[in-house]
């Protein structure tokens, strides 16, 4: 009984994952190679050509999603790092208050927050109509249905997932180690680049993992804030599945997306793995 205890601990979570993750995945994999239609039913024909066809057909959306995900990730790091740094080193006794403020948007529904952006940024909305009436921006100026709006929405919605891991990494940096660097002739800037930054990179690494994947697969922001030119792969999957009822194509696209992201993430981890980055930073 005692030897079984550790396994009992992982049993509930393990079962949960098995039933709600593995089973649907196997089911979807099977659906992806079936042929037919929603009226006459689908038959398993091991039609693997659907993968190639889907990739060719939606190549633009795949590349666009990766591009949006990448840009949004970079923008997120640029915004999140200084914020996390400030909270960790200058937050004083109010640290937890600031962290709560960062997390506050989570108390409002994801979709609702994005829709409220739509109201704020609409062509004749609260922000643009006064600016247009005083002639600060041209009458045909618009924010919605642009690449910037979609990336802005992505960054806005996932920013806390970047801030938190960076904050945790910075919080763990011993201030005496920074003093040691200054004592050893490092100017403030060098103390940051040679000590604080390398020690916080694992946090940045985790933040990228936590934001890049969901941002690339996101369809809410492109759907609400973007236009026809901003369609992401998530929107295509949604349309194929719910509107066109082309389940095999939707499933094949999902698996292609997953595989591409796994490959990308592993390449990223290998190239920028914590150890490698730290070795380079120590020079």
């Amino acid at each position, binding site marked *: 009984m005692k030897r079984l205890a550790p396994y009992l601990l992982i049993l509930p979570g393990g079962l949960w994952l098995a039933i709600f993750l593995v089973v649907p995945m196997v089911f979807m994999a099977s659906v992806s190679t079936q042929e037919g239609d929603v009226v006459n039913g689908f038959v398993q024909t091991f039609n693997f050509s659907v993968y190639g066809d889907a990739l060719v057909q939606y190549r633009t959306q795949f590349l666009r999603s990766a591009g949006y995900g990448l840009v949004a990730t970079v923008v997120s790091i640029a915004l999140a790092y200084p914020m996390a740094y400030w909270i960790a080193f200058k937050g004083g006794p109010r640290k937890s208050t600031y962290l709560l403020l960062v997390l506050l948007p989570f108390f409002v529904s994801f979709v609702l927050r994005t829709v409220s952006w739509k109201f704020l940024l609409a062509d004749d909305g609260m922000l643009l109509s006064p600016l247009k009436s005083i002639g600060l921006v041209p009458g045909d100026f618009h924010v919605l249905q642009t690449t910037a709006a979609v990336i802005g929405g992505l960054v806005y919605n996932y920013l806390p997932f970047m801030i938190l891991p960076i904050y945790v990494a910075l919080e763990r940096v011993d201030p005496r180690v920074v003093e040691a*660097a200054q004592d050893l*002739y*490092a100017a403030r800037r060098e103390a940051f680049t040679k000590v604080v930054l390398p020690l916080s990179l694992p946090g940045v690494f985790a933040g990228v993992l936590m934001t890049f994947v969901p941002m690339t697969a996101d369809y809410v922001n492109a759907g609400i804030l973007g236009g026809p030119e901003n369609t992401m792969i998530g929107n295509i999957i949604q349309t194929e599945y719910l509107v066109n009822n082309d389940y095999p194509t939707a499933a094949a696209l999902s698996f292609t997306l997953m595989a591409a992201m796994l490959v990308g993430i592993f390449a990223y981890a290998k190239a920028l793995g914590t150890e490698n980055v*730290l070795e380079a930073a120590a020079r």
Partner: protein
Amino acid sequence: MTDIQAGTEAAAAAASTSAQVPAIELDGVVKEYVAHGEVVQAVKGVTLTITEGEFFSLLGPSGCGKTTTMRMIAGFEDPSRGTVRLHGQDVTDVPPNKRDVNMVFQSYALFPHMNVWENVAFGLRRKKIGEAEIKRRVGEMLEIVALTGREKRRPREMSGGQQQRVALARALVNKPRALLLDEPLGALDLKLRQAMQIELKRIQREVGITFVYVTHDQSEALTMSDRIAVMNDGLVEQLASPREIYESPSTAFVAGFIGTSNLLSGTVDRIVSGSAVLRLGQEGRVLVAGDGFQVADPVAVTVRPEKITISTEEPTGDLSVVPGIVSEVVYLGLYNSYAVSLADGAEVTVFQQNALDSTSTAERGDAVWLSWQPRHSYAIGS
């Protein structure tokens, strides 16, 4: 040329023209903090001079201001008032990275993401020293601290003693004008601590650099230092050699903090050429050297437990003599510790070495005489 090099060379030039230039001078240094709306003085005015090549200790209980004093020498704290001079140069407003002193931190503060070699080379790299020179000096330094062959280890893969030596090497490799050590042995166990004390002293002799050592451990300070500044409540109570501090503490605080000491109080009975005879109770008389005593003055004197002889017969001769009753005997192997109650209620601790010819075998409840040479007791200022 960087500011550091300029500073070093100017200081080196100054040192060569006059050997009198002290390594470190603190002049009326005060450090104030505001805590909960109140001004707190951590250091209340410290003036001291540390000479070149000296092993100097700042000794005191926690909160006495010793660490703050050291951090002002390193440049991590700005003095509220007063001046800090390194080799004659006023560095009061110079940031730590431009001061030619290095520090060994209490918890070592090694760079966790760098291996031993990179940790030690860090300062030389910042000073833009050539790669070949770095290689030579780091290798040499690792040899001195006996870490050759462990260059690729990360700090977390090393024992406390090894980390300690990396911290030492990382600071010493820069050939600083002074090395500041903040309780560097505090995290080590007793055996290793004693070994490192000897090791530190050896390294200091080998490299010939001024060491400023902060500690609350009096035996550590006594073992290693050339001079000790005993600090209490933000002030230096006494600054002298270990022997002088132990043998003739100048204040009651120093007497109590360093080793075990007995504090006796009496009144001046009569004055004899350059010394006073104090009366303690009915039969006690204590001789104490010094001028400026007045008959009937109350005076406090100290005497170390190991200086006192315990006997059942009243001793004769020019000794300080006080009678008492043995209230406790503790056998400690190397020596016996006696607690003796005096007539006025004071308790005196006496150590008697456990020698073969030990005649004093006083038991609990025995009436005994305590005696000591007059030169072993000192009048104490309050």
